[in-house]
């Protein structure tokens, strides 16, 4: 069987800047004819030498940051736009669900729009006649089908559009972020329908989504695009994990620009803050579930009594996750002027992969007045391989699941015992 989709060396360039007016074009043409150089608008490569092939029946997710070239790729596949170079070969009829409801006419009734939209998507009148009831049924629209679409709520419109779009009979389905439509119940229905199209009817599906969880659940293969190139192409788990990492790195890059917020009495100054990994190497990328050390270097200008240090982790949007202070462990009667180094050792860092920041404070005196306080002091990334299902939240919980049903437990143990070497 030939592959359903074959893309080879696909490149798409756009000219940056605004389209020139007629006058400028004429002037430029004149200049070109006279042999003078004409300022060219710079090129932007939305897709850069992308090659892959998709077998029939494969369900492929395409993920990537905004501007990675996902939509451009889909447009090429759906023949909406033409590649600058390279080729796209498609075997079979394509139904593009690129933003459902394109071409709905507000003045038309639901019924008229079903026929119009069906025709636009390439269905014949007979085909629509045959499927009409099913479409209306699926969209839960029987009551409103003869009302103009402009009186519909936006959710109703999308439901109807989705119902029409997914009833197109095609071998290849291109889906661009459409599952996020309607209320929860309808989303569930959409998801089921997609799953039905994929698993039961064996269609070839291309799914573009920012919902990585959904991609991982539906797809058998994921392609990660980055700046117009294929960054990774492979099993959903691995590719999605590496996408999460990249996202984190990007957030990190953005967060690093955010300023630290500090206030100080002037008696103390924070000179340096470093994170050391389990090997004692200065880094801003820590590994999940590994030991690490946080190192504060301070300069004290004036002798301080009864000093307590404290530090905590917080998210980039200032949700305080932890606080830990030295009161119980260090009893510093007097801290002399000069430079000091404080270490705080953390065993098995429980923070889940993501981007976090540090805050640090120093109090002194019997009343514990704040000498120094700063937050957003240093951003760092926690990396690690974790299933997507365990990525939500901030902390890993050391927990164990047991099925309290006696027989099942024994059975499970028996199985695992057998697999032991």
């Amino acid at each position, binding site marked *: 069987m030939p592959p359903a989709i074959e893309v080879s060396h696909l490149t798409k360039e756009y000219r940056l800047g605004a389209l020139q007016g007629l006058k400028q074009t004429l002037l430029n043409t004149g200049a070109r004819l006279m042999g003078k150089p004409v300022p060219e608008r710079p090129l932007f490569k939305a897709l850069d030498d992308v090659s892959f092939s998709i077998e029939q029946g494969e369900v492929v997710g395409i993920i990537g940051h905004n501007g990675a070239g996902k939509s451009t790729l889909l447009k090429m596949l759906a023949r909406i*736009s033409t590649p600058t170079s390279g080729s796209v070969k498609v075997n079979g009829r394509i139904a593009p669900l690129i933003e459902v409801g394109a071409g709905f006419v507000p*003045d038309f009734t639901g019924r008229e729009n079903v026929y119009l939209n069906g025709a636009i998507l390439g269905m014949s009148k007979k085909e629509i006649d045959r499927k009409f009831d099913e479409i209306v049924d699926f969209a839960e629209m029987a009551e409103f089908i003869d009302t103009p679409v402009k009186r519909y709520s936006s959710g109703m419109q999308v439901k109807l559009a989705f119902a029409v779009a997914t009833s197109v009979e095609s071998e290849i389905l291109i889906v661009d972020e459409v599952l996020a439509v309607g209320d929860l119940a309808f989303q569930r229905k959409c998801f089921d329908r997609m799953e039905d199209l994929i698993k039961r009817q064996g269609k070839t599906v291309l799914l573009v989504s920012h919902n990585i969880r959904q991609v991982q659940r539906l797809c058998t293969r994921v392609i990660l695009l980055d700046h117009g190139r294929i960054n990774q192409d492979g099993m959903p788990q691995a590719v999605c994990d590496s996408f999460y990492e990249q996202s984190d790195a990007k957030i990190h890059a953005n967060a690093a620009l955010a300023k630290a917020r500090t206030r100080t009495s002037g008696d103390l100054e924070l000179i340096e803050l470093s994170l050391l990994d389990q090997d004692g190497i200065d880094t801003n990328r820590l590994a999940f579930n590994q030991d690490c050390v946080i190192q504060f270097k301070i300069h004290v200008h004036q002798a301080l009594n009864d000093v307590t240090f404290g530090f905590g982790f917080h998210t980039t949007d200032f949700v305080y996750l932890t606080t830990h202070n030295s009161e119980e462990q260090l009893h510093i009667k007097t801290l002399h002027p000069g430079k000091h180094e404080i270490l705080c050792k953390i065993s098995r860092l429980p923070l889940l992969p993501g981007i976090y920041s540090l805050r640090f404070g120093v109090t002194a005196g019997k009343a514990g007045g704040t000498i120094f306080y700063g937050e957003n002091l240093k951003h760092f990334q926690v990396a690690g391989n974790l299933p997507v299902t365990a990525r939500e939240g901030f902390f890993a919980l050391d927990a164990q699941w047991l099925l309290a049903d006696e027989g099942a437990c024994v059975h499970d143990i028996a199985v695992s015992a057998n697999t032991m070497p």
Partner: protein
Amino acid sequence: MLTLAKNLYDYRELLLTLAWKNIAVRYKQAYLGIAWAILKPVMLMLIFTLVKSFVGIDSGDIPYPVLVFAALMPWTFFQESASEGVNSVVGNTALIKKIYFPREIFPITSVLTKLVELGINFVILAALMAWYGMVPTVYILWVPPIIAYTVLAALTIAFFGAAVNVYYRDVGQALPVLLSLVMYASPVIYPLQLVKDKLLVQQAAGEWSNALYTLYTLNPLAGIIDAFQSVVLRGAPPDLNAMIPGAVAIAVLLPLSYLYFKRAESYFADVI
């Protein structure tokens, strides 16, 4: 051109559906509905008849209102299908960016829509003819080929104009102005016979007269309007001599216009 024919056949249902959409949308909430389609030629006919009573235009033995209405029918059809055709691609941005089908569907749909309105105008024409006691002859069978030729003339402008309009919206703005000028260069207000008399019989421009007449008939509408009036009102065959220059122009320009459209088509979604 072959792909055009094939696309037309493959996408005939979509064409019809879109044409139906255009018509239905236009008149959906209008009380008079599709009757608006006849308003423009009828109003113009009344105005021209009024003007004619001041300036005096020789309309031969045909009553002027019928003559001018029979000129306005193909003219309005041509003018409106050309201008709507030119704006059809830009006007369907949402579809162009979302779904692929051959883009010539859009200009063709515009022309198809206008064809329906033209059909309605035939009712008015029939009523006018009945009022003046005119009976159509067998030459009325020429009407379908003349209309088909008008469609080709409109598409020649529509294809090229629609493609350029994507890049330079100037075209969509300029075309109505240009076309209203062309109306005066077409035998709408006056019959072609007057031009013929001036140039061919009286040789009013001296040695340039024949060349000027050819230039005049290079405008396909000159031949079309005259032919339409002849076969419907005069009960005579069309004056093919007046049609040849225009027909040659269309035969050359239509393929070029279509090719240009097809070449530009693949960038519509990027530029629009």
